[in-house]
């Protein structure tokens, strides 16, 4: 009897549950805080042992991330005109001068173009395919759906070399378009399956009502199905972006210069003249931001898109 009754938890139970959640949140957020903090440490603080929790913040990591520098002899440094900006000053204090911007900005831009480009394409194609699979009689539907899913089963390493050869043949090597198409192909299985699930949940009656109300099939899809699939589309888009954004294996194997994304680039910072952990941490921190913003922007849809029946069953 009492095991089925719905009662308000007691104060103590709430306290206990709340503390558990906070504890878990602290544990999971620790690496993130550590990365962000390391980005603002000086190189010596970054590798200090025992680790420094309190430290004097420094922008050195960020300056190093965005610039290329070269070391000059002390007398040549002294002969230079006084530095014009705070970051020139900072670099000279370490006995170096800025020779130009680093490639991080461009790699970051590549990530944005490829990540968002492939997400858009995955969602666009995925929604259409999912709608088709959900609403129409498609011959060998189950087999097709399984085939689409199976494309996700092989590890990137297994297909990277054939793809590399194909890309070289058709001139897509190390190109934005090539990477967008590749990530789209990988993400489509996810987006078709997820979106089909969401669209299946939308009763057919709404579209039928729209057809009667004088709309074409496509208009009914656009005006009635899409708004109701917003939740599904938003969450699927977040999954697709996270995959494309973080993807490492294909990126490291298939891109080198022009279309290289940030994930394979960030580790190369380590090699450039000593282990520059603050710069790596700064690169990682900035790299986190777009996905965070994207998720926060779409969060509204994740929660509000869920609509419960105006269809009587």
């Amino acid at each position: 009897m009492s095991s089925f009754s719905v009662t308000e938890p007691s104060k103590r139970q709430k306290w206990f549950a709340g503390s558990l959640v906070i504890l878990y949140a602290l544990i999971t957020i620790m690496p993130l805080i550590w990365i962000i903090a390391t980005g603002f440490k000086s190189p010596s603080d970054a590798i200090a042992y025992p680790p420094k929790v309190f430290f004097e913040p420094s922008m050195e990591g960020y300056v190093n991330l965005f610039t290329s520098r070269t070391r000059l002899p002390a007398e040549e440094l002294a002969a230079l005109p006084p530095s014009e900006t705070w970051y020139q000053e900072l670099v000279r204090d370490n006995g170096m001068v800025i020779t130009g911007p680093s490639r991080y900005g461009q790699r970051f831009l590549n990530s944005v173009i490829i990540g968002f480009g492939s997400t858009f394409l995955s969602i666009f194609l995925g929604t259409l395919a999912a709608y088709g699979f959900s609403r129409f009689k498609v011959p060998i539907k189950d087999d097709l759906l399984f085939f689409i899913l199976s494309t996700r089963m092989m590890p990137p390493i297994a297909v990277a070399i054939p793809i590399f050869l194909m890309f070289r043949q058709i001139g897509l090597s190390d190109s934005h378009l090539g990477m967008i198409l590749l990530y789209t192909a990988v993400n489509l299985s996810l987006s078709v399956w997820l979106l089909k699930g969401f669209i299946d949940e939308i009763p057919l009656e709404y579209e039928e009502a729209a057809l009667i109300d004088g709309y074409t099939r496509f208009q009914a899809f656009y005006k009635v199905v899409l708004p109701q699939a917003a939740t599904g589309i938003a969450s699927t888009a977040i999954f697709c972006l996270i995959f494309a954004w973080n993807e490492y294996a294909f990126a490291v194997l298939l891109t080198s210069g022009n279309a290289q994304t940030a994930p394979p680039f960030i580790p190369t910072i380590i090699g450039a003249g000593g282990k520059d952990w603050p710069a790596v941490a700064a690169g990682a921190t900035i790299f986190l931001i777009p996905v965070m913003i994207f998720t926060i922007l779409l969060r509204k849809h994740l929660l509000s898109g869920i609509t419960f029946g105006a269809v009587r069953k």
Partner: protein
Amino acid sequence: MAEVVLNGISKSYGDQVALENVSLTIPDGSFVVLLGPTGAGKTTTLRMVSGLDQPDNGEILINGQAVNKWTPAQRNVAMVFQQYSLYPHLTVRDNLAFPLRSPILKTPADEITRKVNDVAEVLQISHKLDNKATALSGGEMQRVSIGRALVRNPDIFLMDEPLSSLDAKLRSDLRIELKRIQSSLGATMLYVTHDQVEAMTMATHVGVLDHGKLVQFGTPREIYEDPVSIYSASRLGTPKINVLPADLFGATPAGAVSIGLRPEHIRTGEGLAGQVTRVEHLGDQTRVHLRVQTHDVITLADVHTTAKVGDEMLISPQNPLYFNAQGGRVK
């Protein structure tokens, strides 16, 4: 305004036969009510006319033109679904305006406002116009979905039990409004209901469906007074027609196996004796349940009858209907 003709329409869903060779002419401007128990094929008939489903066989004509290949939009029909199917992401106002904004109608904004307000007033939902469609009671949703049909000026209205979840007062208000709107527009109406009052008062014609077959089509009076079978006779009338062995009251026409007696077609005070088993005072009528030999019979009595359980009552038939072994009518 349109005449609708169904010509030998058949439709199956897998093994399930939903309609079998249904032929039916719905005259221009008429109000046709479809009757039949659940699963008889009423909704399927509406879906055939609307164009949401295609018949397996047969032809549908609107104003003499074969429309089998036309889309629902081209047929200019308005439909009230058995499931209300309001667009959940829109407000009540936008739900009502939705058909007016269609690429076919492209109604100007001020006219949309006017029409939506008019219809909302008729349906008594003006105060809910800015609600989300999901924030309504069942009866309010049902009215909005009727409204979505009424804002238009279609050739044909298709309504699938549109008043089923409304309270008695609203139901009788809207019954009158619907009939008024339909006749003032001169639109053709195909209407599904289980409600006898709706069928009797609104219909110009009634079609009786039995397992996908149209078994009788005629005026409400014809169906009520001159049914072709026990099945047809049972569709109208509350309480339901009493079906008893034909020889219970004596001589019968040749071939008759059962006798059908509507509760008001039983004369009391003479004839066969029955025991009163229950008396129901409904306000406007009083129903008396009797046990006659081994049969249950329901009849109507004077509103202020003093009959009580255990009393004896004598009954005899008046205008009986006779049926054969297959349930068909014997005259």
